[in-house]
């Protein structure tokens, strides 16, 4: 049995004139200790998928489908029981460390509260444990830092604090929502090392949400690619990187620079992600797709499992080769 089992999860937001489907029928499984990346552009629904799983959707959002953690259904679970799981068994690190810590509370109070709440520690035990976690997060001078307020810390330090808070309860799953996006590049690399190291040490499964394929290559075992709220391709990182099947995955890979081929020209995907309020008919990617067939304009391709555990939602079965190149 997998640790977390998301099945047919959809998220709808009611807006002024109607409703918007931010996540459309997503299914995924995460096993213990595994690292899974969810990749996609802004607005593809990757964050909403995990927020829905933890009951953290905005007021106007409704989740349907099923999210099972160790067999227990989380969607619609009463708040009290959900609170025993989130922050304890499943922790989350958010995108923006500058605003994700409470500006009016000391780091120590923000760290110890999860330990006193979930682990029943006394205040002083929790404080010791928090300092130990900050040390593990390679935050220099942790004893001093823990007495400070968030604004006295740099972005990198704050993200280390967030990670330390998330891992201090030794969760089975850590969800990191674009944990490195708001940090500068040198700090990003350190953060990824930290994630890799700590999740390995603690045996934590990691769900990494990112739009940065470099991050995915460095850390994840499996990845799933989302577009306009739908899963378009999933498989192991190696498979998807070396032989993408979906034109969108293919396009993403070609718009990312490679170290081993610095001469390669970046070829961005033309156009913009569609507005969820106004999705194109058929496959949502069709306006930007180089390989689209007539069929793609009227019919949305279902996600189809292929032999080696990969899935792909595309009608085009030919080889994906950049066509424009020849013409240029």
């Amino acid at each position, binding site marked *: 049995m997998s640790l977390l089992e998301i099945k047919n999860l959809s998220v709808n937001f009611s807006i002024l004139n109607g409703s918007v489907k931010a996540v459309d029928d997503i299914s995924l499984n995460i096993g213990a200790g595994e690292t899974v990346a969810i990749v996609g552009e802004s607005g593809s629904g990757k964050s909403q998928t995990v927020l829905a799983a*933890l*009951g*953290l959707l*905005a*007021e106007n959002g409704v989740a349907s489908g099923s999210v099972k953690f160790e067999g227990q259904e989380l969607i619609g679970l009463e*708040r*009290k029981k*959900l*609170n*025993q*799981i*989130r*922050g*304890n068994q499943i*922790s*989350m690190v*958010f995108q*923006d460390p500058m*605003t*994700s*810590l*409470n*500006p*009016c*509370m*000391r780091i120590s109070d923000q760290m110890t*509260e*999860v330990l006193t*709440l*979930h682990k029943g520690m006394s205040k002083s035990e929790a404080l010791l444990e928090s300092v130990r976690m900050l040390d593990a997060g390679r935050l220099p001078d942790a004893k001093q830092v823990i007495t400070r*307020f968030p*604004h006295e810390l740099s972005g990198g330090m704050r993200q280390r604090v*967030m990670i330390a*808070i998330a891992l201090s309860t030794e969760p089975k799953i850590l969800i990191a929502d674009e944990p490195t996006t708001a940090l500068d590049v040198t700090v990003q690399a350190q953060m990824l090392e930290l994630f890799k190291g700590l999740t390995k040490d603690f045996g934590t499964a990691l769900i990494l949400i990112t739009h940065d394929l470099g991050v995915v290559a460095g850390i994840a075992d499996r990845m799933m690619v989302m577009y306009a709220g739908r899963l378009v391709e999933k498989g192991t990182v190696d498979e998807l990187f070396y032989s993408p099947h979906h034109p969108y995955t293919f396009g993403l890979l070609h718009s990312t620079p490679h170290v081993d081929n610095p001469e390669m020209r970046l070829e961005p995907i033309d156009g913009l992600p569609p507005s969820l309020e106004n999705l194109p008919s058929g496959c949502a990617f069709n306006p930007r797709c180089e390989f689209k067939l007539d069929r793609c304009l009227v019919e949305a391709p279902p996600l189809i499992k292929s032999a080696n555990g990969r899935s792909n939602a595309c009608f085009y079965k030919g080889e994906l080769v950049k066509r424009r190149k020849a013409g240029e």
Partner: protein
Amino acid sequence: MFRFIIKRLGIAIPTLLILIVFSFTLMHSAPGGPFTSERPLPPQVLANIEAKYGLDQPFYKQVTNYIVGIVTKGDFGPSFKYKDRTVNDIIAQGFPVTLKYGIWSFIIAVSVGISLGIVAAIKHNSIIDYFAVGFSIGAQVLPNFVMAPILVIIFTLWLGWLPGGGWNGGQWQYLIMPIIALSTSYMASIARIMRSSMLEVLNSNYIRTAKAKGLSNRQIIFKHALKPALLPVITYLGPAFVGMITGSVVIDMYFSTGGIGQMFVNSALNRDYSVIMGITILIGVLTIAFNLVVDILYAWIDPKIRY
């Protein structure tokens, strides 16, 4: 922090001096004087009276004498209208009254306003929220000179529960209507500010973090959200507190409470120079003091503010 307070108190002195000189000038440049009446006094008599009160002296001398009197003897001078009473007597009589119903109004406005605002924000878009918003708007468009007579009609004339006016040493029956009339609009403002700032805080990223930690609603509201949400309310509370404890002419007139609100207006109408100045200075001092208190509270709530 200590240095900050000393510095602010230091700045208070020139501020008050400017206030005194400015009001003094304004007051004297207004037409008429304390002894102008419908039946003009004989010029000789007028000259004598003016000499007695020092009004015949050059303007700069009057100002300096006034300030010297306050600084050296704490004496705000005699009233020009009530022959044998000093300004100190008048304030000592009226201010305790105003202070009593003012502080009660403040306590009620703050406690009810803040709770209402919090509840409205938590139960966003519910009946309670609509009630709170409706109350805030209603109470703010209903001025206290309309509210006061309505209260008297209901509680005194119809129900006969409360005395229609008077003070009687500040017994509770006499306090209720002045407090309601004075506190309601402040309460409404506080509720409105609290609600919107609480809503903003509840939608912030750090509250989402707190939810993701598995904290209960109660812990989220009181441990995480309340302090940052109070900041805009605190800004409003300083001037509101001064406004309430210096009373209101409407309250004093409708309920004959005898506070300094009415005295202030009467003194202005009578050109009772020394009483005008005395109450102006009192309000000035209180305003400066409570702005300082607000700044200190700010530093306590928002760690980014350090003096």
